[in-house]
Every structure is written in structure tokens, then in C-alpha cells.
């Protein structure tokens, strides 16, 4: 990372909060529309797929298909909310609106900015995931008290996808590349991670890939909890999510430093 790497790392434990608050203020101005956007997609899945396929499939692993799907959608909505925020809104603030440029005139470092943006993306993921969770619980697809356990996992999921997307945003020359990421990485991940159908339906080779995907770890933590089952391998899944937060974070800082401070 070169001689001056410490200048790019976060400058303090909480200096990123200023960046988060900036984004929160901007969000407050458009909150209703933004919330609707976060909710519409997973709702269409739950009600559309849930009622349509639910009739054909009956039960999946002892629960109704709708309950199975809803739990998957909590994790998936966290993934998409966080990813879209980062690859579109954050990318625009980094490149088109020069928002980051103004931030870099101050006592913030690149690391503070990236951390603030990631925390913000995770916040949006938490809002989206929690909203779906509330709907799911209201429809009695899940237990209310499971939400308390699920919320931190949603936040971690948001952070992991913000971190990964930050690497993509750091590398992408234009919006076209971000669309590639969305359709070639995020959509396949949705299919392979067991959000809409159980992973054991996949051919064994693909199942092995599934174990590497962050969304799969998130679903393995969220679904059993929401359905009131015990959660196996908690530390493994949490560890995997944390790895997906920490490693891309440092990679993205190195890449962004090269991109922005040439």
C-alpha cells in the first residue's frame, strides 16, 4: 500500500460517524420513497412466489414454503439493499458528485469515509431486513422474538455486502461494470444460496460453491432462527461473514487510494 498507508486508514474509532450522519440526513429527505423501494422487491417475492409456488410445493423441510421463503428474503433484502446502496449511491458520491473529494479536504481519511459508507449501507440493509422481518412475523411465518437475534446478523450481512461492493465500486470504470456485478454475481448468489429453494436441491458441485457464498452463511444463521429451530455452526457462519467484512474492507481502501490519490 505504499509509504503513506496510515494516512488512508481510519483515523479514529468513530470519525466515520460524520459520514454516516451525512448520508442519514440525505436519506431522511427521501425516506418514504426509499423505504418503499426496499420493501417492494422482497414483498413481491414473498407474496408472488410464496403463494404461487407454495401451492405446488406444499412443505419444505417441515415448514410452509412461504415461511421458508420469507426467512430467505430477510437475508436477501439485506444483501440487495446494501449492495445497491454501495454500487450506485456510494459510487455516485465517490465519482460523480465529488462528495468524497470534499470529505478528503477535512480531518477525515479515506478509511473513515469507506467505514462511514459501509456503516450506512449496513444501516439501510438493517432497515430493509427488519421491515421484511416485521412483515414475516406479522403474517406468523416467524416468531417475533427471533427478530432480536436476527437483527445483528442482518447488520453483519449488510456490512459484508457493503465491503464486497466497495471493492467492485473501487474497480469499476463506469456504471456498466456495476450492472455486470449485479447480474453476474449478486443474482446467481441469490439463486445458489438457498434463499428461494433449499441448497440440497442443487447438484453437489454447485453445493460446494454455495458454502463459500456470504449470503449462504447469512441464510444459515437467519432461517433456522426465524423458524424456531436450533442454529448449527454459529461460529463458523459468523466467522465467514466477518471475513467477508474485513478482507474486502482493506482491499477496497488500497484500491480506492490508488484510484483517488493518483
Amino acid at each position, binding site marked *: 500500500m505504499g509509504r503513506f498507508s496510515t494516512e488512508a486508514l481510519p483515523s479514529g474509532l468513530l470519525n466515520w460517524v460524520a459520514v454516516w450522519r*451525512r448520508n442519514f440526513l440525505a436519506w431522511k429527505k427521501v425516506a418514504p420513497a426509499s423505504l418503499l423501494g426496499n420493501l417492494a422487491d422482497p414483498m413481491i417475492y414473498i407474496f408472488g412466489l410464496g403463494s404461487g409456488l407454495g401451492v405446488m410445493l406444499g412443505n419444505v423441510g417441515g415448514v410452509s414454503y412461504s415461511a421458508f421463503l420469507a426467512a430467505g428474503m430477510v437475508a436477501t433484502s439485506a444483501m440487495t439493499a446494501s449492495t445497491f446502496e454501495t454500487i450506485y449511491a456510494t459510487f455516485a458520491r465517490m465519482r460523480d458528485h*465529488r462528495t468524497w473529494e470534499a470529505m478528503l479536504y477535512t480531518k477525515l481519511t479515506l478509511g473513515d469515509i469507506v467505514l462511514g459508507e459501509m456503516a450506512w449501507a449496513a444501516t439501510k440493509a438493517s432497515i430493509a431486513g427488519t421491515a421484511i422481518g416485521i412483515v414475516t412475523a406479522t403474517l406468523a411465518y416467524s416468531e417475533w422474538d427471533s427478530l432480536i437475534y436476527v437483527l445483528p446478523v442482518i447488520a453483519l450481512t449488510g456490512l459484508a455486502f457493503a465491503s464486497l461492493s466497495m471493492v467492485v465500486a473501487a474497480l469499476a470504470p463506469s456504471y456498466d461494470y456495476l450492472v455486470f456485478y449485479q447480474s453476474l454475481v449478486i443474482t446467481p448468489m441469490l439463486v445458489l444460496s438457498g434463499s428461494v429453494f433449499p441448497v440440497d436441491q442443487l447438484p453437489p458441485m454447485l453445493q460446494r460453491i454455495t458454502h463459500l457464498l456470504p449470503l449462504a452463511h447469512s441464510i444459515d444463521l437467519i432461517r433456522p432462527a426465524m423458524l424456531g429451530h436450533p442454529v448449527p455452526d454459529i461460529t463458523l457462519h459468523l466467522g465467514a461473514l466477518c471475513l467477508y467484512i474485513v478482507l474486502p474492507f482493506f482491499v477496497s481502501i488500497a484500491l480506492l487510494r490508488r484510484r483517488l*490519490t*493518483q
Partner: protein
Amino acid sequence: MGENMEREKLRPKTISTDRNSASARSNPEREIKTGHLEPEPNSAPTMAIDLQAVTMIYREKTVVDSLSFGVKAGECFGLLGPNGAGKSTITRMLLGMATPSAGKISVLGLPVPGKARLARAGIGVVSQFDNLDMEFTVRENLLVFGRYFQMSTGAIEELIPSLLEFAQLEAKADVRVSDLSGGMKRRLTLARALVNDPQLLILDEPTTGLDPPARHQIWERLRSLLIRGKTILLTTHMMDEAERMCDRLCVLEGGRMIAEGPPLSLIKDIIGCPVIEVYGGNPDEISLIVRPHVERIEISGETLFCYTVNSDQVRAKLREFPGLRLLERPANLEDVFLRLTGREMEK
């Protein structure tokens, strides 16, 4: 933090409305004005900026070439150069946003980029292109930016009225930035740069793209900052701006310094006599006739520049050519640039 603002408010406006001629703002006058100021709280280094043999190479292209200069605390130092001269690159290096390929930079006594974050705590920046938050109001822009310096909401809110007054935007406090005029946006950017009460201001073409009244407003604001004892690094490609504002300047071309000094002495040393601009003839033909009577001749496109102390004699000679238009004027930085580079600085 708010003290300087208060001082500014209490002091009667010392700036006359005529700020057009460079001589109206000569250095002795500045010294009188700043003489009664108490020193800035932590203005320890006498050199606000020090560059030593700084080079910047982008993909084998040398954009800044072994450049050295120093900016003293309290002065307005100009970087004057045409498009692509390297002005913005230099400002980015001063902020630690670009790492020089070679050379040493110190800003406010701190090595940059090594301690750039610490240095930036004492710097205010106006960049060449607006980077305000368009969807926020004027007030929100100041609030959000202050937080980037880890200032508390209360402390920033206390400061906002004086910043609005400085920017002459009191009536626009709750207007969205996207609804402001270009001049207002630049004044807001300047006010925003003061939120951390910086000792040093780095201003990259702060008046480019503004109409004359808006430019004058910015200049007047900058003067009030100099009176408060701030140091200013100003980049511009406009000769009149450089001549009017800067105590000293450095003329850049292609990343290299081609002249350095106070504007008036540069003009005196390098040109040293008035100019007659001649339009509407064949410059080569005319130059043959007048050459014996002038100190120097420069030709730029269709315009002939005659540098001469005996203008009457030259005018008499020029009468031999019917239909010429003549403009006699004192020499300025434009002539310096033309002399040193053989071309005019395009606007």
C-alpha cells in the same frame, strides 16, 4: 473558534469599494492593515507552504517539474498558469490527495503527505469544481462539513450565522444549494472552507466561470480574509486576478516555474515600459517599420505588441499604416507571460 468571526464583525469595513487597480492594494497598505492584528493563535511556522524540488509524473508525463516555492504566513501567493500548467495537481499534492513522485512538501510546518491529515486541520479548501451537497440546504452544507472536522453540532451551529454573513447568504440559509447561482455557490464554498477556522486557504480558481460582479464579490471576501491574517494560496489563469490579489506569484507553464515575484516587480523587471497593442494590419510588415523605435516587439496571432518608452514616436510611425487600431496601456502580467513563453495565455 468563533472569535475571528466576531473580530471581523466588529471591525469597520476598511476596504474601499475601488479594488480594481493593483496599486490600490499595494503591500505597505496591507502592512498597515494587518499591523494592529493580534497574531493568529497557532501560527508558529513563518512559512505556511514550502515546496522543494517537487515533481509529479503521471504515466511518464511530467506534470509538475522540479518545482520549488515558499508561501509566507499572511501573504496571498498566486499560482498563475494556463490550462494544464499543473495548478490543480499542486493543490492536490498540498492536501495529501496526490503523492509527489519526488521532492519534499511541508504545509503549516508538517510534512505532506505523511502528516497531511494534521495539516488539513488548519487548511480551508475551495476546489476548482463545486463539490457542495446539492440536495442539502446552505445551512446543512455547513453543518455536515463541520462534522467532518469532528466539530460538535452545537459548535457548528454557533458559527453558522457568521459564516452566512461572510458569504452574504443570510437570506438563503434554508435554500437548497441546487437553487443557488454560481456566484452564491462559490461564496458558500468559501464560507464552508472557513468552518474549521483555518490558517491557510487553498483556492483553486475560485472565480473561474463567474461574471464580473460575482468575481468582485469573491475578491472582496478574500481581502477581508487577508486582513484577518489568513494565508492564501490562489491559483488562477486570469492575469487581472493574479495582479489584483497576489503579494507574490509564481508563473507556471507545463509544470515548470518560469517566473516568481511580486506582480508589479515582475512587470517592471521583465517588461518595464508601456505597451501599444496594434490591431488590424499585417503584424510582420508593421514590425519591420517600428522595430528601430521600440524596446521589444511580440506578435501573437493578428496582434502586435510594441513595448516602448517613447510612444509618441511609435504612434507617428504607425500613422503610415492606415486603418490600424491602437491601444496604449501599462504593461501587465499578460505581457510577462507573452514575453516568457512567446504566446498568450488562453482564457
